[in-house]
């Protein structure tokens, strides 16, 4: 099959797998994704876990019943599907798992979170699993924002000037109760993968720009109080809030990359406005959370 060209996270990609979640691309691909034979194990792995092996340059992922995937040097993703594996599961593995490893191998700064854009400004919503960044992003789409990326947010820091968020996977991943809260009456049958609980929300508006200046980063936490609070952070507090949001696999323990992530996070914290949003658990107050956030960032 002739590879198709895509553009995601500021990278040009070629893929023999169709990846409709990504924007079309052009030019010479920096990352090649193709179906090929993948070895069952790596020689002399430095790290091993339940479903992975890793060396400094390669990561082998094994998802039983779906595929083996080999991610090499930040430049190549090889996929060997298991018999009967469905296309959505393969795409899921490539887009949300393997591309993240590619970006980490390339030393890119990737946050766990979503970004939405309005009038040439990007708002990044970052936070730990379960904090509700995708739900908030989906709610902001109803306020006129356009989707830029969900789950993985690649931040680019030029030597001078503003930090930028690159368009990534623009489909939002939501749990059924979140989808119901942000899209009352919307069909909840579009699953990320067959039998997966998470649903896919194709945004009504995607950002026409491939990269947008980040003006605000909101680090979202599920709070313990009924009230919603959003406070501005500066200096070390801002850095400390953003650092844990880095989407980094612990098995790629390259000191050079770790140092780069530390430096880039510090620069990012210095170039944007940073907030910590403590939102009540549950979805009943979602509209109020959105109002609090928009009021705070002055949109």
């Amino acid at each position, binding site marked *: 099959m002739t590879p198709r060209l895509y553009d995601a996270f500021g990278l040009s990609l070629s893929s023999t797998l169709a990846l409709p979640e990504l924007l079309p691309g052009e030019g010479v691909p920096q990352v090649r994704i193709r179906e090929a034979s993948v070895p069952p194990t790596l020689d002399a792995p430095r790290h091993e876990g*339940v479903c992975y092996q890793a060396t400094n340059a390669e990561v082998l992922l094994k998802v039983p019943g779906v595929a083996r995937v080999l991610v090499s040097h930040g430049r190549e993703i090889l996929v060997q599907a298991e018999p009967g594996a469905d296309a959505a599961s393969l795409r899921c593995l490539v887009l949300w798992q393997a591309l993240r490893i590619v970006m980490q191998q390339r030393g890119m700064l990737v946050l766990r979170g979503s970004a939405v854009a309005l009038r040439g400004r990007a708002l990044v919503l970052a936070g730990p699993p379960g904090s509700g960044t995708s739900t908030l992003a989906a709610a902001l789409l109803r306020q006129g924002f356009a989707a830029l990326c969900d789950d993985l947010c690649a931040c680019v820091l030029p030597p001078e000037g503003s930090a930028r968020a690159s368009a990534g996977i623009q489909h939002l991943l939501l749990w059924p109760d979140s989808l119901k809260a942000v899209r009352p009456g919307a069909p909840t049958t579009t699953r990320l993968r067959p*039998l997966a*609980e*998470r649903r896919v929300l194709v945004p009504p508006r995607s950002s026409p720009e491939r990269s947008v200046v980040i003006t605000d980063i909101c680090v979202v936490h599920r709070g*313990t109080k*009924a009230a919603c609070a959003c406070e501005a952070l500066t200096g070390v507090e801002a850095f400390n809030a953003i650092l844990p949001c880095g989407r980094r696999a612990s098995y790629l323990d390259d000191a050079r990359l770790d140092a780069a992530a530390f430096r880039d996070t510090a620069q990012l914290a210095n170039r944007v406005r940073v907030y910590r949003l403590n939102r009540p*658990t*549950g979805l009943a107050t979602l509209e109020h959370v959105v109002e609090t956030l928009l009021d705070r960032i002055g949109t």
Partner: protein
Amino acid sequence: MSGIVWLASYPKSGNTWVRIFLCNLLAEDDTAVDINRLAIPWGLSADDFERLSGLDPGLLTAAETEALWPDVLKAAASSSDKPLFVKTHRAYTRDADGAPFHPLEATRCALYLVRNPLDVCVSYSHHLGYDIERTIATLRDDAHTVARGESNAIGPDLAMSWSSHVGSWLEVAEMKTLVVRFEDLVRAPLASFSRLAAFVGLPCSAAQIRAALQASRLECLQEQEARAGFRERNPRGGLFFRRGEVGEWRTVLTGAQAQTIRSDHGAMMQRLGYLTRC
């Protein structure tokens, strides 16, 4: 000596209280631990799952997550040189090959907490935000699942009915298990908590046990929850730390409701002495 120490129970049976007590016992000073920053967390997190497996659990199906959990738990146990306390509301289940979900090779021991289902029903109805009738139905539901942690991504845990849950743990023969009744923790705290602390490998003086109990008093937990909330509270339910009483059911359940629970769980209640006491 490493390995997992299971803190196992059906929901609302004193598991969080014991966990907070152990956290206070392990703390370096006498200041009560912050209930929102417990050294022994609710359970392994989505980040833990991903760190140990290499896969984001939010991208997996429930069946895939379920199948991977035992290996993730083994990896968690082998990556720690200290005992790893893990709370579980899961019934003691086995896969199709007979292998237990709570892997034996990763286990050091299990503390099983049990409480009169009549009081569990009252407490659980507040926690879930259900009425009593619906909670009674939940207690008899063998398909009942509970959250495994704070993130949806790590999948639900199969608690089963109260009787099935209790029966499954009481029949565990291959794992060193101490069964502790919630009622004994309330009525004889010093002796009961001393016994369980020694069992899980934390032999302490009576003074240390008393200090940890003092820091884990219900009023202390309620004060913290009122001031700062509690991250493990069900948003659809009421306060987490409510009464902690033995026999509250007498003033809440109707005679018919209590009789229904006795009918549903009579055999197991008899075995644990709950038909004649409490």
